[in-house]
Each structure stands twice: as C-alpha cells, then as structure tokens.
C-alpha cells in the first residue's frame, strides 16, 4: 500500500491566527484515517485545503504521487477527491435522488440544447446517471426516501444523503467532516458500517474528522491528532491512545 496523499509542511493562517502550523503526514491508499483533536484544532481547515476550498499559505500536497498545486474544488473533484461537510451542504428543497444526481454534475457531457429537446445522447446520459443513483440508494439503504425533499428528513438521514452525493462520483479519496455529528448510537453504528463498506468494497481511501473516540478506534487504522493546528500524534489507534502528548492535549483516561 502506497501513499495516496502526502501533506508536507502545510501551514494556513487567517488574519494572523495560525489555523495550521507546519503539518506533515501521509495517508496510505486503502486506509481509513481519522483526524481528531479538540475543537478549533484546524481539522476542517485541513479538509478545506485538501479539496481546494482554502489555499494553504505554505507547504506542499501530493496526491497519487503528483504534486497538487493550489487546487480549485472542481479540480480536486476531477482528481477523485470527494467531500462531505460539517453543516450538511445539501440542497434542501430537492429530493434525495436529485441531491445524489447533483454529485454527477461534472460528468455531464450533453449540451444544454440536447437536454432541452430530449435528444438521444441526453436521454442515454440521464439513464446512466439514474442507474448510478439507484446503486448508491441501494448501497446506503436510502430507497424508501428516494423522492423525499431532503430538508424534511431527519438529520441522520441527511448526513447519509450527503455521503451518497460524495460517493456517487466514485472518489478515490473521501473526506468526511464529522459524518456522525448529532447521531445516536444506533445511527452511528449504521454510518460506521457504511463507511467500512465503502472502504472495503469500493477500495475508497477515507479521511474522517470524528469526535467519538469509540468510533475512531473501531473504524480507523490510522489516526492523526491535531491540537492548535499542530500534529501531536500520528499512528495506529493504539499507539495514539498511549501517546502522552495526545493524552495531554485532549484524550484523557479511556472511558
């Protein structure tokens, strides 16, 4: 297993406040890497850098051994980096199915006029997209809510839809920003199962930001700990749990 993503000496600051300081780590292909740390440690900012929403002030990024220079979100998406967001950036008035389909926007080949007049290529494309969407609906067990407006779904289901929207584009690397926030134990179990399935069945590498330590220990094989924008731990879950710096920063005694 080789390094899919390499982060080297990356720094980011906002108006003088350092969000990320000289951060370096790498993520191997096929692993699930958890990014943990106290609030404000820079985790979301890091994801934003990885998929091009923010630009790092310093440092380098390498994706699949190719340098990733100041990417734009569309560019990152094209390279195979998919993303979910902390605040559920879903399209509230559209149905679950339509939300999933928006994830395929950038694969659209047919022109406006072809779609307006229902020409064959547009129809073929629409069928192919619909098939992909059905597959994702099935994988994430979302069929009962296919035509439901996303805004009226329970929060946990919304998060699952967002996962689906990122998944439908078949990303190589999936960045999940607190995918289990606000869920109860049962929902977290479901979500963990889905993430594990995605990783195992589809081979997708996953970086997830997560606060629930149980989930982190159970799901991931690699943990990176951030505190005030600096890395304070990097290794397997067991290693990190035993690391005194990490404990000092935030873990405390287990249970």
């Amino acid at each position, binding site marked *: 297993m080789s390094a899919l993503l390499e982060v080297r000496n990356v720094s980011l600051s906002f108006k003088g406040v350092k969000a990320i300081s000289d951060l370096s780590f790498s993520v191997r292909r096929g692993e699930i890497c958890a990014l943990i740390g106290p609030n404000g440690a820079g985790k979301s900012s890091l994801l934003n850098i990885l998929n091009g929403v923010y630009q790092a002030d310093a440092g380098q990024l390498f994706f699949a051994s190719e340098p990733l220079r100041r990417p734009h979100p569309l560019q990152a998406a094209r390279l195979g980096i998919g993303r979910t967001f902390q605040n559920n950036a879903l399209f509230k008035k559209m149905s679950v199915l339509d939300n999933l389909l*928006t994830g395929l926007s950038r694969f659209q080949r047919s022109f406006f006029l072809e779609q*307006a007049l229902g020409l064959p290529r547009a129809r073929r494309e629409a069928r192919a997209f619909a098939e992909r969407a059905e597959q994702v609906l099935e994988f994430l067990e979302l069929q009962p809510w296919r035509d439901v407006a996303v805004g009226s779904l329970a929060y946990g289901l919304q998060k699952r839809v967002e996962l689906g929207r990122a998944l439908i584009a078949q990303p190589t690397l999936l960045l999940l920003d607190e995918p289990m926030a606000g869920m109860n134990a049962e929902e977290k179990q479901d979500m963990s199962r889905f993430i594990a399935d995605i990783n195992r069945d589809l081979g997708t590498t996953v970086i997830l930001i997560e606060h629930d330590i149980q989930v982190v220990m159970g799901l991931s094989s690699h943990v990176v700990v951030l505190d005030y924008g600096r890395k304070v731990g990097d290794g397997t879950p067991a290693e990190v749990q035993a690391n005194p710096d990490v404990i000092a920063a935030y873990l405390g005694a287990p249970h």
Partner: protein
Amino acid sequence: MTVTVSRLGAVFDEAPLTLVRRSWPVGLPLLLLVAFVVLPWLGNDYWLNAILIPFLVLSLAGLGLNLLTGYTGQTSVGAAGFMAVGAFATYGLLLRVPGLPLPLALIGGGLIAGAVGLLFGIPSSRIKGFYLMVTTLAAQFFLEWVFAKFPWFYNHASSGTISAPRLELFGYSLASPVGRYLLTLSCVVLLTWVAVNLVRSQVGRNWMAIRDMDTAASVIGIPVERYKRLAFAVSSFYLGIAGALWAFAYLGTASAGSFDINRSFQILFIIIIGGMGSIAGNFIGAAFISLTPILLSHAGQWLFDGNVDAGQLQNLQKILFGSLIIWFLIKEPEGLVRLLADLRERIRVWPLRF
C-alpha cells in the same frame, strides 16, 4: 437494518415528509385534445380573446420567470422589460426582413430577448440574492425607456405603438381569435414541453442546486456563474416570446407602457401564488390572476345588483391579491400547486381511513 416507510407521514413522528412530485398530470392527452380541438370549436370570441389567450400568455411569462426565480433562485422584478424586448424585436424582424415566416420571427425575437437577458445576467456572478433585484430593476426601467424613446423601434409611429403584423402561417391567416388562440396554444405547449425537459435534466438540477445553496453547488463542481447566466438567457427567451404573443396575439397593439413595472409585479405574483419552482404552478397562477377580476366583477354585479364601481373592484382586487400573497407566503410558500397536491393526496387517502 432497514426502515420501511409504510405510509406517507412521519417515520419519527415529527413533521411529515415532503414528497417531490415528478409526474405528468393525469389525463394530459385528453387535456391537449380539449385544448386544441374542442375549445376552438366551442369557444366564442369573448372567451378566446379575453380569457384563454391572456391566460396562456401569462402562463408562459410565468414559466419564463419561474425558471429564473423559482428554479434558479435569482429574484427578478424585470420580467416585463424582457417581454418588451421580445415584442419589439419580433415586430422589427417581421417588419424589416421580408418574407420571414412567423415562427422564425418569434424565435428570433426570443433569441434577441435572451441575449439581452444574458447581458443583464452578467452581474449575477458578483451580486447575490436580494441585491440582484437592482440589476433587474435597472433592466426594467432602462428597457422601458429605450422602447419609448427611440422611434426606430416602433417604426416612427407617432403614437409610439407597434401593431400586429401579418399573422400568418403557410398562407393561412391567423388573425382571427381562433387563429391567434391556436398560435398561442402551440407556442405554449411546445415551450412547456422544453421547460419540463430542462427542469428534469441535469440543467434543472444544477439550477435548483444554485437556488438551494450556491456555495455548496460551486464546491461540488457545478459551474455556478455559467448556469446563472444560462438561467437569465433562457428565462428571457421565454419572456420574449411571451411578450411578442402578448402584444400581437392578445392586445393587438402595444407600446413600451404595456410592459411596465406593474406587469413585472403581476408576473411575479403569478409565480408566488401558483408555486415557485413548479411548472404546473404557472398555469394555476395565471388562471387565478386572469379569472379573479372576472369573477369579482360578476360577483359584484350579482351582489349589488349591477351597481358596482369598476374602480372599486380594482381596489378590492388589489387588496385581495396582496392579502393572498401574504397568506401564501405564511401558510404555503410553495403556492397553490402544493395546496392542490396536498388536497389531492388527502382525497386519495381518505377512503382508506375507513
């Protein structure tokens, strides 16, 4: 573990789930048959001229505005300005290009309106949401001024009006009420079909994504600026054709004043009352706006034995419309179309409750 939804309603005993409907209305072929065959044969001139034609044109105008405001979320109060472009452009084309067939002149008028719409849509990449109203206001007042100020547009007529050019197709005159009705109906049916294709396609989804959260849309790779401009262009195309039809199939003669800001507000009302982000809503809204004045005046005549002031009726109508807008915004922001759909659903479920 799978959760099955056994009935439409709360799974978690919270607010009921909202379904997004996407089906053709029941009996569409029958409806089309009635519209194309039965009505022209049965209908008298009054009904065609005063009710059906304006209803159809207003539906089309609503549809155009809805694509921009209801589906893409770009508020526009300049709809009438683009209608004016279409009317004057079609007039100009028919006047200056000898032998140009009517359908091409209409499409040409629409394309020119679309181009103007595109121009005014360029600021939408910098200017967001509510502020965009200024662009559309600028468009509205500017275009109204242009078509009143420069005589070239109305062929130097001293009255400043343009009148119905030769309305004919393949040698058949369409100047009669039935002719104009069928012309309007054909345009509306065709353009509605195109609109349905659009809103169900990726184009439509991109538009709605921009409406719901354009920052997220941009991050997942949707070219937001391009689609906003596209929405302006397509919307103005529709409005342009509606404007041409309004001037020539309905009014007969028109001037810049036929497309003033009150007309823009009227179209906005149609889509608010009918339902923003819906196709059927435009028809419902237009029907409402067209029929209410007539119903009110008949009711007034019946209640007060014919002694009713037309002016007061208009005032009453204003109050009624204003109140309805507010009521809809509070109670049913998705307009009459959602109200009727819920009603239909309740009627469907009702026998099952026993």
